[in-house]
């Protein structure tokens, strides 16, 4: 669905490139996370893929065609949820969605059904100016889903949401994936990416030093070790030969164990190690 090869971009009057030689591909039905700190170039990459930023070098293809060659009908097939609310504040949630729904030629989904997906159906007739930032972000997501697009570009979709709402949003993203939607997610929230992305790519200083499935990366950058916390303190055991390790087996039967943790890295650890020399 998305293919990027050797993508570079320099903003006018900038001395250094914002993106430098990015390459990645995203298959249909995949959730792909582009992770990195603010200013790393995540939004720039997204803007290029959405056809909003010309003047790049390299290859950027979306839906099998080079970006910028599909004309305005391209926007019938993609849905975008921006990092900040982009809504009419004096209109209600339902009025906002009705307005944007009218701009698409393809059939749009029922507004109240969409609002219910993010628990906003009871607020359908409330003006957006009375919404919290989290509610506005959820309405942003509704707008992106209105025309049932094939590809979704979601920029920090859980920003401003409390943990319970953020979980609802993550569950919705996974549901969309199960319906066959391709999702391009940009975030600096590593735990969120770990939970919902099939693959992630770390972006630092315009480069992607590491990419892959979160589980693979965590194993690759972690230690093959088991941390056993007991009432008398922590104990480390190598994973190799664990089943025959006499000390470990003794602990298992001692009734002193508080917790057991394998020592794979977190995505935060992977990011820090992978970008240390970029």
């Amino acid at each position, binding site marked *: 669905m998305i293919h990027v090869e050797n993508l570079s971009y320099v903003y006018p009057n900038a001395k250094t490139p914002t993106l430098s030689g990015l390459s990645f591909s995203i298959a249909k039905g995949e959730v792909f996370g582009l992770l990195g700190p603010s200013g790393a170039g995540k939004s720039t990459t997204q803007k290029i893929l*959405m056809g909003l930023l010309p003047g790049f070098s390299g290859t950027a293809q979306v839906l099998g065609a080079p970006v910028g060659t599909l004309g305005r009908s391209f926007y019938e097939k993609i849905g975008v949820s921006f990092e900040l609310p982009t809504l009419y504040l004096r209109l209600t949630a339902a009025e906002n969605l009705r307005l944007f729904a009218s701009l698409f030629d393809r059939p749009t989904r029922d507004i109240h059904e969409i609002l219910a997906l993010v628990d906003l159906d009871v607020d359908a007739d409330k003006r957006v100016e009375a919404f919290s930032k989290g509610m506005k972000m959820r309405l942003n997501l509704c707008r992106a889903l209105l025309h049932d697009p094939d590809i979704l570009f979601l920029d920090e979709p859980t920003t401003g949401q409390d943990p319970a709402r953020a979980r609802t949003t993550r569950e919705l993203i996974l549901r969309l994936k199960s319906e066959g939607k391709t999702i391009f997610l940009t975030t600096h929230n590593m735990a969120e990416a770990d939970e919902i992305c099939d693959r992630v790519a770390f972006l630092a200083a315009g480069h992607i030093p590491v990419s892959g499935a979160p589980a693979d990366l965590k194993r690759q950058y972690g230690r093959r070790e088991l941390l056993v916390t007991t009432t008398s303190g922590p104990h480390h055991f190598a994973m190799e030969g664990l089943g025959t390790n006499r000390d470990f087996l003794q602990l298992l039967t001692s009734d002193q164990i508080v917790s057991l943790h394998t020592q794979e890295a977190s995505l935060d650890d992977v990011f820090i190690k992978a970008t240390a020399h970029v």
Partner: protein
Amino acid sequence: MTIAGFLKPYQFVRLIRADAQNVSRDPILIMMIVLGFVAPILLIFFRDKLDIWAENTLGISVLSQYVSIIAAAAPSVLIGWVAGFLLLEDRDDGPLLAMETTPIGKMGFIYYRLTVAFVLTFAISLIAAEMLLLVGWAVRLLFALLVGLESAIIALFLLALARNKVEGLALSKLINVSLLIPLLAIIPSFFRYAGGIFPTYWLGEMFVWSDVAPAGLTLSLLFAAVAHLVWLIGMTRLTARRLG
């Protein structure tokens, strides 16, 4: 069938409805649109009293003829300001960016707003000209068309030059002054043509020549059309460049 070259009728109606809801919930925007009607209406009712007052206190006869030009052109400033201010708000609050990811696009949406401002201003100015301006119907029609174009120019001027809504309010003071520019045309000096770089100047020039010489009127109309189109194209290009 499309409206403004790219919108289907139901899309146009939906956008108009949303704009009407949006404006109706902001007292300042309502006031600006109402003021667009107030100036011509006041002049219709108090024209004679104004002329008597001007004659007695300022020594100017038929002042209302000159003020009529300003009153009939006032809707361009007020409706153009509302259209421009709404676009500034859309840019600051984000809906304009969201429009860019829809089939109509950012510029498509701007053209829609300009079309509405033009049509609304044209209609009001035509009625105001009919009641206030003592010139032939063809001149009144052309006057309303040019005033309609001015509302689009003003909306673009705000969007292109104001970095935020506060700057938009400051620029509106400058825009209000443009309503006085047609009066330069009654100055009996060649230097009055310096005002010709502003499109509104030519509205005054049209009236100066309307009763005097058909050739002068035709030439004024030609310059008026050129000045309006140059400003409209220039502001459209500047807006497109500023918005990226």
